[in-house]
Structures are given as structure tokens and as C-alpha cells.
């Protein structure tokens, strides 16, 4: 079976330091793939490259066989990105934040029977973003990232700073997205998120290799260095 996502030999130098040196990996369509690595290993950098926020110094990014580093427009349509933190305008309501990403008819449709309905965003549409809980904010961010109906969704440490209830809610939403056919690539070091993943890749010394988690956090910590 041909993987939907392929990264080939990605290079990235940042302020004189080589962060990624020929990183390669692949992922199946409709799966959740975890990207593991210690702090500063380059996970966020890799996601930023795939999202088009920064440019690589070398390598290829293929989605269903199509090179996306050279096609920003196609990449913007195919890839959704939820960075770490809360990329929201905190003074605006949830609805106003969504209006930044959705055209009016698409917003109505999504709230009625689409991804936003599945995410339960309708519960807090009129609430100012600064007053939402961490879990609600994260659901809202994912809702924003899904505006263009991307086939690949990149999430950078999605459950950071969420309480237990918020985290459970979020993981449930990620599972539903996968079941709906979306491919997810998650940068994480959270054990619950790791447990959710169908495949894991370990980023260390600028290169990627497949990793099989045996359920022992001590082994994982040793691998991460």
C-alpha cells in the first residue's frame, strides 16, 4: 500500500544550527501518526515546514504522490495546521474567530452538520474567546484549521495545558476526525496521545526513525534522551 504522506530527506538549518538532517518518514491515509522527540528536537520545526510557515533547505514533501513544497496553493488546501498555543483573537467571540476562516455559507453548513458540529463548537459560539476553557479553545482552533476541509491535519502538542476532562474530550475529537478519513500528524510527548496513535516516529539528532512504544514510559524516556 502506498503511503498518503511521505517526507524525503528534509533539511533545515536555523540560525547556524542544523535542526533536521535528511529526515524521512511516511504515514497512511486516515491514520494518526505521532511525532516523538525531546524538547528542542525539531518537532515543531518539522510541522512548520509541512504547513508552509517556514521553508526547508532541502528535501521533499509528498501528499498522495504530489510534491507540495513547490505548490503552496495546493498545500494550503490539503494541509490544516493547529500550532501550539491558542491562535485566536481573544477579544472576539468564537463565532467571529470562525468567520476569519469560513465563508458564511460554509460556516452555516459546518455548524449544522459538518466538522464544527462534530466538535461541539455550537455550544459556545457567542462566548468571547478569552472566556473559553482550554479544551473549548483547542476545539475551536481545530475547527478553524478544518475550514478548508484538509486531508492532512498537523497538530503541535494539542493537549498541552488541558485539564483531564478537556484532554479526554480532545482525544475523542481526534479519534472521530481519523474515523472520518482525515490523516493526522501529531507532535507530542503526552502518553495518552501516544496511546491514540496508529504509528510513531522518533525524531532525534535531526533524523526520523519508526518507533514502537512498548507501554513503558521509562523506555520512551531513554529513547528520547
Amino acid at each position, binding site marked *: 500500500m502506498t503511503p498518503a504522506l511521505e517526507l524525503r530527506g528534509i533539511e533545515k538549518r536555523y540560525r547556524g544550527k542544523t535542526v533536521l538532517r535528511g529526515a524521512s518518514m511516511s504515514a497512511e491515509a486516515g491514520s494518526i501518526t505521532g511525532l516523538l522527540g525531546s524538547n528542542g528536537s525539531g518537532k515543531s520545526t518539522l510541522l512548520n515546514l509541512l504547513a508552509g510557515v517556514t521553508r526547508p533547505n532541502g528535501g521533499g514533501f509528498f501528499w498522495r504522490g504530489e510534491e507540495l513544497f513547490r505548490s503552496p496553493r495546493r498545500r494550503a488546501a490539503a494541509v490544516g*495546521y493547529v*500550532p501550539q498555543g491558542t*491562535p485566536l483573537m481573544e477579544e472576539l467571540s468564537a463565532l467571529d474567530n470562525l*468567520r476569519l*476562516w469560513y465563508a458564511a455559507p460554509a460556516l452555516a453548513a459546518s455548524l449544522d452538520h459538518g466538522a464544527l458540529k462534530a466538535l461541539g463548537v455550537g455550544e459556545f459560539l457567542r462566548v468571547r474567546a478569552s472566556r473559553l476553557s482550554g479544551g473549548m479553545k483547542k476545539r475551536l482552533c481545530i475547527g478553524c484549521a478544518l475550514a478548508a476541509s484538509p486531508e492532512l491535519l498537523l497538530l503541535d502538542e494539542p493537549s498541552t495545558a488541558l485539564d483531564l476532562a478537556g484532554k479526554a474530550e480532545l482525544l475523542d475529537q481526534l479519534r472521530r476526525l481519523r474515523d472520518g478519513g482525515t490523516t493526522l500528524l501529531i507532535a507530542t510527548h503526552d502518553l495518552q496521545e501516544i496511546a491514540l496513535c496508529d504509528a510513531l516516529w522518533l525524531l532525534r539528532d535531526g533524523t526520523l526513525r519508526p518507533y514502537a512504544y512498548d507501554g513503558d514510559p521509562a523506555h520512551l524516556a531513554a529513547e528520547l534522551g
Partner: protein
Amino acid sequence: MRARRFFALLRAELRRAVILLPPVLLAAALLLGAAGLLGWAEASGREGDAARRRLEIGLVGDFENDAWLRMGLNALETMDSSRYSLRFSRRGSEREALRALRAGELDAFAVIPEGFLAALEKGVETEPIRYVSGAGAQGLGTLLADEIVRAVARLLAGTENAIYAAQDYIASGVPGADPYAAGDALAEEYLSLILSREKLFTVELAGLSGGLGFAEYYLCALSLLALLFWGVACVPIFAGRDRELGRMLRASGLGAFAQTAAEYLAYMALMLGFYLLYAALLGLFGALRPEAAAALGLDRGALARLPLRGLLPAFALGAAQLALFGLGPGRLGALLLQFLAAAGMAYLSGCFYPASFFPSPLREIGAALPSGAALSWMGGPGPLPLLWLALYCAAALALRTWLRARD
């Protein structure tokens, strides 16, 4: 898609700004009021200093061969310097003197008409000496007039002494002469030559920064202060923003330049709204209280008209402020940066008192700043300040875009 997202971002920026506008407007009003008061206090304090400093007076015209006039000038230069001192320098032409006055090299200059003293001696009417001052040195007109009157009085007394001496000489030694009739004739002739002149000199104001009067200049300076301190007031809206939103927008295809453009348009809409409100309030004040405007030396329309000259410079200052928002680390850093930039630029560019009071290097720095170009434009629109403003605007937006792309 990108165009739709651009306008959606612009709308969101405007919405966000409108939500935060009331406290921002209040902060802007407070800052402007405080800056105006400080400027007034500073300018008042400096007026006293100015009266004690050396005053550079230029002289233009025919005076080299006039011994009396040279004597009068010497008297002025050597008079009591505990309050101030005068120094006279010859200037080739009135145009050169005017240029030197505007550049701050002179405090004033006097134009002595061709053959002034010769005409005076012959009892022929002549053009008056014109005394041309910058508006900022308005007090100098009275000051110099006073000193000239003193010098003339001294000359008169000296001449009278000479007349009496001549009278004594004639009485003691010239046979057949009537010393009293000769003395009376001399005194009468002298008085008819000198004292019959009602206007020996007139005072003109060449103005500051392109010919503005004193009150007009400070009205422009106050308007510039309003624009400069708007950046400080807007810190809650535009500074310390989450970088993640910018990244997510870039991932969706809306690049750093488009984001900067949307942000700039939103910022300018707010800034111009605020500034037009400020100009309208001034215009209303001028319409309702024309006597107050007249007391300041302004015509009724000036209060409405002059601030409008700040509309174009607002685009460059707005861009510079937007760039500073990106440079400040967090909201507190941006607040400090905006405040220091606004206060520094206002000071150096002559918002608190005319830049001609500064030493030459500071004056050049002040003129090269965006606020200097703005004040120059407000004083008298021209291609050079316009070019500077356009360059500053482009450079500031490029810097903001670069900072966004680095986030």
C-alpha cells in the same frame, strides 16, 4: 480564497480594535493632554532661557559706510550682557538671510535700505529698516526695538552735547557769530532729520517651518503630538500578539505581507478616525469660540484647516508605529518603546519648542526623523518631505512584514 481571507482578517482586526477602542481613546486623550501641558510648560521655561542667550542678528543692505549706524551696532553689541548679548553678521542678500533664519543660524535679521542714512541726513523720506524675525523669537522684536530706541537716545544725547559744545566754541571764539542762533539752527536741523521719522523700522515675522506663525506652528505641533501618542494608546490592540495566529494564517496561504497589509489598513482606519475626531473638535472650538482663536493669533478657519495637513504624514507615522509594535518584546516592552519613540521624536522635531533652539547636529537629526518630515510637510507641503514620508512608510511596512515572517 486568499482575497476572502484577507478581507476577513481586515474585518476581524477592525472588530477587535473597535472592541478595545473606548479605553484606547481615553488613554490617547489623557496622553495628548499631558504632552500638551508638558510642552507648554517646557516652552514657557525656555522663553526665559532664550532671553539670556546670545542672539544672532543678520544685517542685509547698505551700512558699511554709515559711521553712525556702525556706532549704533557697536553700542548694541557691547551693551550689558547679563540678560543677553547680540552679535551682528553681514549677509549677502535678503534671501540668504531668510534661509539662515529658517535654518536656525540667525534669530533675526534687519534689512537696511539702500542709502538709508544718507536719506536721513538729507531729510528725505526713505524705506524703513525692516526687522525680520522667526515667529519663535517673537519677543525679540520688542527687545530689539527697545534697544534701538536706547541707542538712538544715546546718539541724540551725544549729538546734543556736540551741539552745545559747538555753541560754546562759537560763543568763545568766533567773532560776529550768534552762538545761540547757530545752536538753535543745528538742534532744529538735527531734530527735523531724526525725530520726524515716525517709522525708522518695522518688524516682520518670517515664520517657522515653512512660514507658519507662532500659534499656527504650535497647532501643527500639537496635531503631530496627537499622531505620535496614538501609537502609545494603541499598545493594547496591536502589541504583544500571539505569533501562532500569524503562523496559522500563513499555513492557510495568507502570507506575512498580506497580514501586515490588513493590520496596517485596520490601524490606519482607527488612527484616521481618531485624528479626524480631534480635528473636528478643534474646528468646532474655533467656530464656537472665534475670540479664543483670535487671541491666539489664529483665524477661525485655521483650527479646522491646519490639523488636516497631518492626514498624509499619519500614513508614515502609523507604519512606523506598527513596526515598533513588532519590535517591542511583549506589551510592556512595546509600551516603553512607543512612548520613548513618541516623546523623543516630538522633542527633537520641535513639538515642544522650535527646533531652531537646538544645536545644529540635533536639529539635523530631528529634521531627518519621520516626525521632522511630518512637521515640515505640515508647515509647507513640498516634494522633499513627501519623499521622506513615503520612504519611511515603505521601510516601516517592510520591517513589519519581515518581523511577521520571522515569527
